[in-house]
């Protein structure tokens, strides 16, 4: 039964990707380019980061702690996002989900296997970044291992936290118990465990012991995740509400933007993603601000988790829009303009959610407003890339592989944009362009990329 389940999941994922790649040589080319260049770009990014952080890590212990916690927080947010997005038995559809399948088999075949492959790929890229960073620290290259394993442990803890809180919210006692256990393991990991040891390893401490500690936490966290996942209660049906039909002023474009915001805002999986990562960001900011890295470092590092969660909104925008394509495509409104308006609506929603999250994070770790503004700017870059990634690999509620592909495309796009835009800003300011103007152009380009990709996809639909 397990092999039948796993092979069905793999077949479905491959068959969804194959026509997409065959019909769009551009997407296929970009995917191949990303696979080929992401490790090299990651190494390049790691070298730059190492040049910037290496001496600071040697000088200040808090920088080493903040670096490890930054990786761990991002991994925890990614783990929570992935676990909450995993469809579990819903993958089997409305008929076969009634089949007598053991929950552990469902978890292993439909959640753990695809997420395990994705985690391996993510660890490879993270390793490409961390090895040059660690090489620039007193700990040397070997210090990358405990940081990587700390990231893996944090990812598994994030997944366990997401899954257990979801179960607890649906009334599962097992979910509540696992959530408490996850909180305990997380607190131990932060206060007296592998995170501190990994930071010490970056400053020349024992790397092997730190790696073993992190590996142990990863195994425990994996067990807690499985425990919560096999006891995941069914989602409660949304209550049906009759809403008044109100004409929208401003025509099809305004209506499309409003509908996009409403559809995205009402998706439970997106609400969960934003809430989970926002919560992780606030908790991380509090931990970092109180003695581990200082409020300003805490704000910036923790806000990364909130950024990732809010990016789920533009990543999902095209996939959600496609679900109502039968109505939109049958209407006389121009598809491209309608899609552009829907994409703008999604961007506005993501930025609004990010602003709210940053406000909450700032309460936990006070930081200057300019830092918040800089993160909103980073949000513009990230969300534009997220729109494009979600258009290339449309989001599906029941497709964990589709969601992972979209986030992988987002990672590759962000890495490429970060390097390209950094170069653009540097050359523009060298050529005498005011810094503000150069930054404005750099922020506008990803937004235009995202909206342009959505418009292009809408105009191609139905051909």
């Amino acid at each position, binding site marked *: *039964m397990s092999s*039948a*389940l796993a092979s*069905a999941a793999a*077949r*479905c994922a491959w*068959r*969804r990707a194959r026509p997409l790649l065959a019909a769009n040589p551009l997407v296929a080319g970009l995917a191949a380019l990303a696979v080929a260049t992401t490790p090299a770009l990651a190494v390049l990014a790691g070298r730059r980061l190492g040049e910037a952080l290496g001496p600071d890590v040697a000088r200040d212990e808090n920088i080493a702690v903040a670096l490890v916690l930054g990786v761990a927080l991002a991994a925890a947010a990614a783990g929570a996002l992935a676990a909450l997005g995993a469809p579990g038995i*819903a*993958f*089997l*559809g*409305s*008929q*076969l*989900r*009634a*089949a*007598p*399948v*053991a929950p552990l088999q469902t978890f292993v075949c439909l959640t753990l296997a695809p997420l395990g492959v994705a985690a391996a790929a993510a660890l490879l890229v993270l390793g490409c970044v961390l090895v040059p960073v660690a090489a620039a620290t007193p700990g040397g290259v070997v210090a990358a291992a405990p940081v990587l394993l700390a990231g893996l442990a944090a990812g598994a803890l994030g997944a366990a936290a997401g899954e257990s809180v979801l179960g607890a919210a649906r009334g599962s006692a097992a979910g509540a118990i696992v959530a408490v256990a996850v909180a305990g393991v997380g607190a131990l990991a932060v206060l007296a465990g592998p995170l501190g040891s990994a930071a010490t390893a970056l400053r020349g401490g024992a790397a092997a012991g730190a790696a073993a500690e992190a590996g142990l936490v990863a195994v425990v966290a994996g067990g807690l995740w499985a425990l919560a996942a096999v006891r995941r209660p*069914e989602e*409660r*049906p949304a*209550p*049906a509400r009759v809403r008044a039909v109100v004409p929208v002023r401003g025509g099809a474009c305004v209506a499309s933007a409003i509908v996009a915001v409403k559809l995205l805002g009402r998706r439970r999986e997106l609400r969960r993603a934003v809430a989970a990562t926002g919560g992780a960001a606030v908790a991380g900011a509090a931990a970092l601000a109180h003695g581990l890295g200082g409020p300003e470092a805490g704000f910036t590092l923790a806000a990364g988790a909130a950024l990732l969660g809010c990016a789920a909104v533009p990543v999902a925008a095209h996939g959600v829009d496609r679900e109502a394509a039968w109505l939109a495509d049958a209407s006389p409104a121009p598809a491209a303009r309608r899609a552009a308006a829907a994409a703008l609506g999604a961007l506005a929603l993501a930025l609004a959610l990010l602003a709210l999250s940053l406000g909450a994070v700032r309460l936990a770790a006070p930081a200057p407003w300019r830092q918040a503004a800089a993160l909103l700017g980073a949000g513009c870059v990230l969300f534009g890339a997220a729109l494009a990634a979600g258009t290339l690999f449309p989001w599906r509620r*029941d497709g964990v592989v589709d969601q992972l592909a979209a986030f992988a495309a987002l990672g590759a796009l962000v890495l490429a944009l970060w390097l390209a835009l950094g170069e653009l800003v540097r050359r523009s300011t060298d050529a005498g362009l005011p810094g503000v103007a150069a930054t404005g152009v750099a922020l506008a380009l990803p937004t235009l990329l995202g909206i342009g990709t959505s418009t292009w996809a809408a105009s191609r639909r139905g051909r």
Partner: protein
Amino acid sequence: MTHLNSIEPLAAAGVRKSFGPACAVDGLDLTVRAGRIAGLVGPNGSGKSTTLRIVAGLLAADEGRLAVAGAPAGSRAARAATGYVPDEPTGLDELTLSEFLRLAAALYGGPPGFAARSAALLAAFGLEERVNARLGSLSHGLRRAAAMTAAFALAPALVVVDEATAALDPEAVVTLRRALQALAARGSGILLATQDLAFAEVVCDEVSLLSRGRLLAHGSPAELRGSFGAATLEDVFLNALGRPRGLDELSGVLGAR
């Protein structure tokens, strides 16, 4: 309250299910005996699909007792004894029909005779030539026929069919009728929900009329016709539930220039 007989394909007593303040199923008693075809009829929102989803183990009842072939509804044993056809089969769009059937057989433990029964059902539903077509490429009616093929080929103790005739063409409706009668003759209990009262009248041994989650009437089609003094099941339905509100105003509003 009905006494639960654990050897029946389905025995349910006092089943209640609410979604927030809305009560979808309100104290329903229901028994499906081996070899019998039981129909649930009622207007949209009367609790038919919710009842079937509870029986199939997809929803948990808030109150009441349900046993499928002697096992508590929702347990693995109960699921293994149930073949479920949803009103809208979705998911697994990328699998071919033959792959889907193989997966269904694997998930249900490879029941003996599955291959022969599914081949016969594919032929009867006119799906033989589409075994290599992807589920997502099938029309709604063919997709439902594919779902029925998978559920019926399991030959389980209890067959549960939601919106039995929805989207099926007349030939498929005939096939469905024959298949259900054959499964009942084999000893399966059949529980179906339908809006097609003519179909229910012909196929069902007993019919339960639901409204707002409650059982309004129960009996064989002949008994129901007799007790409501009606010529057809459709008349029973209208006599029991009354005419839809707003029907008289509809022509005026839609016809206004």
